[in-house]
């Protein structure tokens, strides 16, 4: 296991400081509507002008999380479903704004959450590489240069020119992963995506992670795959109900988690 207690000179590339992220849950109103707002406004005028907009409950998905990571760190995030793993990754990526606390990330962030949800189904894989790559921040030239390598990693072969709607979930996932790692990010955030594809793909994906780490990139990896966390992560965080239960080397945290789960 890698030694993380060794002091490093480098500055932290990712800093989260006392981050709270909450969501309003509307039990009775599945979505907010203009009509609903109008009716509530009228009700408010007539009945209880001081009471706000209807019944809302607030759910704090992250409750005062502080995390630091330096270049070269591979941080595993483990915890049960609903413990805040994805919320944490999205907050680090800047997708959610923290309600309290602060997040600082240095450099280019690339974030891979799910299986190519941003793809346009009627366009070919190749066309989607350009659209997605551009959304993720690459220039047209950079994409052209990396197209070969993206195609090779995604193992799509001639299917690259077929419409994405004909792809299987695994094919979409591989394509999405291949684009994400070619963004050449300084900080890569991965959410359970390495489980797509067969064993051979996972091996290649794992070796790419190793290469990124050696190139002093910072990687966060949220996963239920404890073996993978133990194997590829330098550190780990155990999240439970939005707070950090334990933080330490990957081995320590995974063992504590397993014994805590009774497994």
């Amino acid at each position, binding site marked *: 296991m890698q030694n993380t207690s060794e002091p490093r000179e480098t500055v932290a590339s990712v800093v989260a400081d006392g981050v709270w992220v909450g969501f309003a849950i509307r039990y009775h109103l599945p979505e907010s509507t203009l009509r609903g707002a109008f009716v509530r406004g009228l009700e408010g005028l007539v009945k209880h002008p001081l009471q706000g907009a209807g019944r809302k409950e607030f759910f704090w998905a992250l409750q005062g999380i502080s995390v630091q990571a330096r270049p070269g760190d591979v941080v595993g995030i483990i915890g049960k479903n609903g413990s805040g793993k994805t919320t944490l990754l999205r907050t680090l990526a800047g997708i959610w704004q923290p309600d309290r606390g602060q997040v600082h990330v240095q450099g280019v962030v690339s974030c891979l959450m799910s299986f190519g949800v941003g793809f346009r189904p009627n366009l070919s894989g190749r066309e989607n590489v350009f659209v997605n790559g551009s*959304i993720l921040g690459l220039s047209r030239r950079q994409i052209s240069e990396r197209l070969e390598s993206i195609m090779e990693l995604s193992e799509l072969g001639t299917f690259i020119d077929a419409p994405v709607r004909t792809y299987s979930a695994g094919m979409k996932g591989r394509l999405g992963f291949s684009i994400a790692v070619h963004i050449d990010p300084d900080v890569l955030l991965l959410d359970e995506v390495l489980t797509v594809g067969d064993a051979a793909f996972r091996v290649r994906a794992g070796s790419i992670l190793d290469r990124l780490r050696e190139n002093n990139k910072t990687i966060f990896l949220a996963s239920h795959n404890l073996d993978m966390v133990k194997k590829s992560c330098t550190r780990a965080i155990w999240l439970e109900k939005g707070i950090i239960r334990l933080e330490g080397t990957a081995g320590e945290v995974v063992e504590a988690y397993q014994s805590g789960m009774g497994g």
Partner: protein
Amino acid sequence: MRAEVKQQMRQLFARRETIRFLTSSGLQDLNRDKILGNLWSLLDPLLFMAVYYVVFGVVFNMAGSGRSGQFMIYIFLGVVTFRFAEVSLGQSVTSIRGHRGIIHETNVPKAVFPVASVLARFYDFLWGLLVLVAILVATGYRPTLFILLLPVILMAYFVFVLGVSLIAADIGVFFVDASNLVTVVMRVLFYLSPVFYFVRDRGGFKAMGPFHNQTVKALYFLNPLTGFIECLRDLLMWGAAPSRWLILYLIGVSIASLVVGLILFSRREGRYAKYI
């Protein structure tokens, strides 16, 4: 305020390549599976024109006898111009929610989505105008010097539609039924704009009754869509100069709506992800 507008403009400029990809892929994505493909950019306004022509030209005979050719062109210009605003708004109001997947996966400036929608529709609009000009030239129309104002009017119209689309996109994030409202409002505006009737005496067509009253007419022209449609008719059909006050008014409204749209995005785009 100025800083907010600048910040959004800079963000959008930095993402111009993304906007171009989204625009062209949006156009292709829409038409890829249709047999007639991109021809629909032209067929759509032509078919709408045909419908309105049959209803208002043939059934109601609004243009009077012997004017049907010119009335067709009159309606076509109105329809093409109106459709640009209508379709842009309809798409923009759902554009943020429609890209939930991307927005929940990466932190991208949210304005690129409505901007790309409006650009794609502007492309359709320009094709429609090109067809119109081709018909005009074929039927013996010779442009006057006033045609030099055309880029100014088109630019102002684009800015106006973009601004209102950004505002609609912002509202659409927070209220799901905003798209229903846009549909209804655009229907009302359609009848409140001179697409198939006459508000001024031009080219031999006579203004309809209510517009003989100058106050009514002035109020009527507060609707920027009326102004844009009539300006384009002045330039393309009548070879006349639009009123300079009207042009200044249109430019003012356009800039104001774009500024409001950009400020809304600058202030609230960080919260969009949570609402969609």
